[in-house]
């Protein structure tokens, strides 16, 4: 059975295939090809939402992407509840569930509508004025209440289960918009053989040909011509045709972002289909064919459900076969609304009256309307719409005042004229120009290789549009390297003409009136609000916009910007161009986060780096921590052990026996070449020329400003070969820093730099038994103290594979770092682990590594330093070559501030109560009794419980710290002030005897 407002014989949809759906729980039936909007209208439903601020009942303004009112929530399941979906865009599928938003308890009876009655409180700028004071009230009162009352939809409770695809594409000509203009351009470009992409936001191509019943091209009905042309384009190898695809952003150098809605219109898309696909297209030339958007008339209660754009009513009739009412009024300031009245009248709908603001217009459409017997009133205005949940009447007066009459209607179609869609042109940084005669902003100066054609370029009429578009498409293709096409320009046999119209408030809503004549429906901005903004001192359109929120809703003012501008200009007494148009910004219509994020979420959000021993550590039950992209074993708990117990055990075992630690994440760079030593001299503070092959040195790297940039142990493998280690986090930037100097400041040096971080797995074996653990597995290296002292490096074999064996220590114990090719890392680790087991050694993680190094006062760059710490501040002056005449940072080190007294210096701290462990980052003061705000003299950089010391230990940066040895300082914390004593940085084995222990 037909829905009540579906007109048999009208529209292009087949009535054979029905689709059931529900709205606010009530079941309805539509037909395949409907939008949610057309299906609801077919069932006579106009009331679909409540407005944002005043909770006024709202219906459908439009039949497309510009819709400000009909925002609904589409529910598929608990995880898929999409809010703010425009019902005019959502395609119907069988089983679709939609709910209205922003109403409680029901759409017809909404408690929030009290805001409408209390609206004097809520006028322009009310957020700024009302909710400023008292300060506490914002968080506790205003914000939660406003959120509850002004919600736009409900968020889903579960993570989005859909997936989103992403594609990059390149083409010679990208055509944005698939109406008559876009199709003509695409055809012309495609005929030259170049790659063409044509995109349109609708499900079907044709643009305004969907409703322009009079259009005829190449002997066919305009819409049929469009479908035939699209079919031909789809068959061409050099053309990609994308429907349901919105160009939302125009970026630099013809880089355009498009989002394709792949499966929002399908009942059960299945897992194989993405929900949306992001297209990032780089085009040699772009043709913008985005058409124009009809404007509404600004009069009292112009937001009542049933009041809509004339072109929307025509689309519902001519495409969907739906009448938007049975007794329809028309209010217009231009010709195009007549065509809507004529089409509806011919379909059997009564046209109560046409009210035309113009005094004595003439033309064929007016004659035709008159011939059909439609009542026409010139020089008159609709000053008010009656009804509440649905329009019931319109009050008509002479436009200059005088007696009115009220005409009963169930819908009002309105047209104030057409606004060229210059959004994408403006996003491309093109400058719009105001055409005084047509009162339109049209593309002016171009900033990129693009061209606007058709209605978005101010073209009047189908004939002019197709001419201009075809020529532009051919030209763009030629400029992009295409051959001369062999096709013929489509011939327009008949078409309609865009006409003028009016901007701003109509009669009855002008200066001095207080009626609710809406300019921006979505943000509830009235003509009065805009005038008030001007009165309160907003003289730039950008200020008016922010003060009133006109054009700032999700529809971005597609229907409201020009009216708002005209009202502000009138109030300011300035011409429109002087007041200025607000800037258009991406996105053109809302874009889901899903489509932007694509597959980059969850495990794919960021790469994960794992070391060669990761699997072994995982099998041992290691707990991991994230260090940059790396997963590092944090500690190795035994059954029943918490972190604290595990770390204490690991710390004690390493110093008593030994331990194995995966140090593979440290950055490694090989510096090779005849000038390698010279290069090292310039990049590090230390002297390198005289370092013997086979020896190591702790190196410090500075920035030119004299501050510590990185550190690490460097082994000299040969006169021309250094094995440099960096901090884990610093590896990429140290490499970049070295390359920068090598390529640009010291290009005369003959040196190659190679990152070898991933090539070598590094197993640190530390502790008194470390040599006993390693030695049985090593071939060709004499590991005696005489042959291989602390800070030396040897090459040989371990477990039969090559090794670079460093004798070095980050624990203060006798220690080695075994470098082996990463592929053998796990096998060598397992062999070393088996040896270690014989001695009772432990595996240890990063937490124990941190504690052990802090017990020795070894710094970690980035933790104990923060980019403002010099070698001297850190107590590392010994590592700066005093006889050197140049290295990066040498001049920075002598800057006045860097040699001044009282700089923060790294020291040790012991809490007076040994059981108290300080918080890292805690501030330090000299006098805890001073008034707040206290003078802070430093902060804690590292702090741990040291089981080896039987107490807590800490490192801190303290002003003049080394002159404060033995002093008592204070760490004020929320639960009381902690007393600390300033000490040296070494808490274990001050003499360093254990390195050979």
């Amino acid at each position: 059975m037909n829905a009540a407002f579906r007109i048999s014989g009208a529209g292009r949809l087949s009535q054979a295939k029905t689709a059931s759906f529900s709205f606010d729980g009530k079941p309805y039936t539509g037909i395949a090809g409907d939008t949610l909007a057309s299906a609801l209208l077919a069932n006579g439903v106009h009331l679909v939402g409540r407005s944002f601020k005043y909770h006024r009942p709202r219906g459908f303004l439009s039949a497309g992407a510009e819709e400000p009112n009909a925002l609904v929530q589409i529910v598929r399941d608990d995880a898929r509840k999409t809010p703010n979906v425009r019902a005019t865009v959502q395609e119907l599928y069988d089983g679709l569930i939609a709910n209205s938003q922003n109403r409680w308890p029901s759409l017809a009876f909404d408690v929030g509508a009290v805001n409408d009655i209390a609206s004097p409180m809520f006028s322009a700028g009310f957020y700024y004025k009302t909710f400023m004071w008292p300060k506490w009230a914002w968080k506790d009162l205003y914000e939660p209440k406003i959120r509850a009352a002004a919600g736009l939809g409900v968020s889903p409770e579960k993570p989005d289960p859909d997936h989103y695809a992403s594609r990059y594409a390149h083409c010679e000509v990208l055509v944005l918009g698939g109406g008559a203009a876009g199709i003509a351009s695409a055809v012309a470009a495609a005929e030259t053989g170049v790659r063409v992409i044509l995109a349109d936001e609708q499900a079907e191509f044709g643009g305004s040909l969907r409703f322009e019943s009079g259009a005829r091209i190449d002997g066919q009905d305009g819409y049929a011509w469009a479908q035939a042309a699209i079919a031909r384009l789809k068959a061409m190898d050099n053309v990609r045709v994308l429907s349901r695809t919105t160009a939302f952003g125009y970026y630099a150098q013809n880089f355009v972002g498009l989002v394709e809605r792949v499966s929002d219109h399908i009942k059960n898309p299945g897992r194989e289909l993405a929900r949306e696909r992001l297209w990032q297209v780089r085009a040699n030339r772009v043709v913008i064919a985005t058409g124009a958007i009809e404007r509404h008339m600004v009069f009292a209660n112009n937001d009542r459900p049933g009041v809509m754009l004339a072109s929307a009513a025509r689309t519902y009739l001519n495409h969907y076969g739906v009448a938007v009412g049975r007794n329809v009024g028309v209010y217009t300031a231009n010709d195009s609304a007549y065509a809507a009245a004529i089409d509806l009248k011919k379909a059997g709908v009564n046209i109560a009256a046409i009210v035309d603001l113009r005094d004595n217009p003439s033309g064929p459409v007016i004659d035709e309307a008159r011939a059909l017997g439609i009542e026409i009133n010139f020089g008159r205005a609709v000053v008010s719409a009656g009804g509440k949940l649905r329009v019931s009447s319109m009050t008509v007066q002479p436009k200059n005042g005088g007696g009115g009459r009220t005409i009963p209607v169930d819908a009002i179609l309105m047209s104030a004229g057409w606004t060229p869609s210059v959004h994408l042109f403006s996003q491309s940084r093109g400058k719009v120009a105001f055409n005084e005669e047509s009162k339109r902003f049209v593309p002016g100066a171009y900033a990129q290789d693009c061209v606007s054609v058709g209605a978005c370029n101010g073209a009047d009429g189908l004939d002019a549009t197709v001419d201009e578009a075809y020529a532009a498409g051919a030209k763009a293709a030629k400029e992009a390297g295409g051959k001369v096409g062999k096709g013929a320009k489509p011939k327009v046999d008949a078409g309609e003409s865009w006409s003028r119209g009016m901007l701003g408030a109509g009669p009855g809503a002008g200066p001095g009136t207080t009626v609710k004549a809406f300019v921006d429906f979505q943000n509830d901005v009235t003509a009065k609000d805009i005038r008030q903004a001007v009165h309160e001192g907003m003289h730039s359109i950008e200020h008016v916009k922010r003060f009133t929120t006109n054009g700032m809703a999700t529809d971005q003012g597609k229907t409201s910007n020009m009216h708002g501008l005209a009202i502000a200009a009138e109030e300011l007494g300035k011409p429109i161009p002087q007041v200025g148009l607000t800037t258009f910004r991406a996105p053109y219509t809302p874009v889901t986060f899903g489509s932007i994020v694509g597959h980059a979420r969850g495990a794919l959000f960021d790469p994960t780096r794992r070391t060669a021993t990761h699997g072994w550590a995982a099998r041992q039950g290691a707990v991991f921590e994230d260090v940059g992209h790396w997963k590092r074993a944090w500690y190795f708990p035994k059954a029943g052990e918490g972190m604290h117990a595990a770390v204490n055990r690991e710390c004690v075992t390493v110093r008593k026996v030994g331990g194995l630690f995966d140090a593979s994440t440290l950055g490694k760079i090989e510096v090779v070449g005849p000038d390698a030593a010279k290069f090292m001299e310039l990049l590090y503070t230390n002297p390198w020329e005289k370092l013997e092959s086979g020896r190591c040195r702790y190196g410090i790297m500075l920035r030119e400003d004299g501050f510590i940039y990185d550190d690490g142990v460097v082994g000299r493998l040969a006169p021309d070969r250094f094995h440099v280690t960096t901090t884990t986090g610093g590896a990429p930037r140290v490499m970049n820093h070295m390359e920068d100097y090598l390529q640009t400041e010291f290009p005369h040096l003959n040196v190659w730099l190679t990152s070898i971080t991933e090539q070598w797995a590094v197993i640190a074996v530390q502790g008194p038994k470390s040599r006993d653990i390693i030695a049985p597995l090593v071939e060709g290296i004499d590991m005696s103290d005489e042959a291989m002292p602390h800070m030396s490096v040897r090459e040989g074999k371990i477990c039969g594979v090559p090794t670079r064996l460093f004798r070095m220590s980050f624990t203060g114990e006798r220690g080695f770092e075994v470098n082996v090719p990463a592929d053998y890392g796990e096998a060598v680790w397992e062999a070393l682990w088996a040896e270690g087991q014989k001695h009772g050694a432990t595996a240890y993680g990063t937490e124990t590594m941190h504690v052990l190094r802090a017990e020795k006062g070894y710094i970690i760059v980035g933790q104990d330093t923060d980019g403002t710490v010099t070698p001297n501040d850190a107590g590392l002056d010994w590592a700066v070559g005093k006889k050197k005449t140049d290295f990066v940072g040498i001049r920075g080190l002598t800057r006045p501030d860097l040699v001044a007294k009282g700089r923060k210096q790294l020291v040790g701290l012991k809490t007076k109560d040994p059981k108290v462990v300080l918080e890292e980052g805690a501030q330090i003061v000299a006098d805890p009794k001073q008034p707040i705000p206290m003078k802070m003299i430093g902060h804690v950089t590292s702090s741990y419980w040291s089981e080896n010391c039987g107490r807590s230990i800490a490192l801190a940066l303290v002003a003049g710290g080394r002159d404060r040895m033995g002093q008592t300082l204070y760490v004020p914390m929320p639960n009381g002030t902690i007393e600390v004593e300033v000490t040296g940085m070494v808490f274990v084995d001050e003499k360093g005897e254990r390195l050979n222990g």
Partner: protein
Amino acid sequence: MLLIRCPYCEEERPELEFRNAGEAHIARPTNIAAESDDDFEKFFFIRANPKGVIYERWRHIHGCARFFNAVRDTVTDKFVMTYKAGEPKPAKLPGAPK
């Protein structure tokens, strides 16, 4: 996303492959240790930050890894030209009035 022409690879590549490296043509003094405080300040801290044409360094870090120089308009973001590291500042820019 910008397209940037790498003068070593001799082709335009997407911005994602590159990293900006600050203003160009600021040479490290050969005897830097002897620089006065004022000269060091000028060398290390002071940058032109112009509105309009800027000479700056870029690195094709996810490509050939070379540092090079570029002329860019900070208002339009448009690259006027790129050239190899070590080459002098171009005397005349393409498209500039003669």
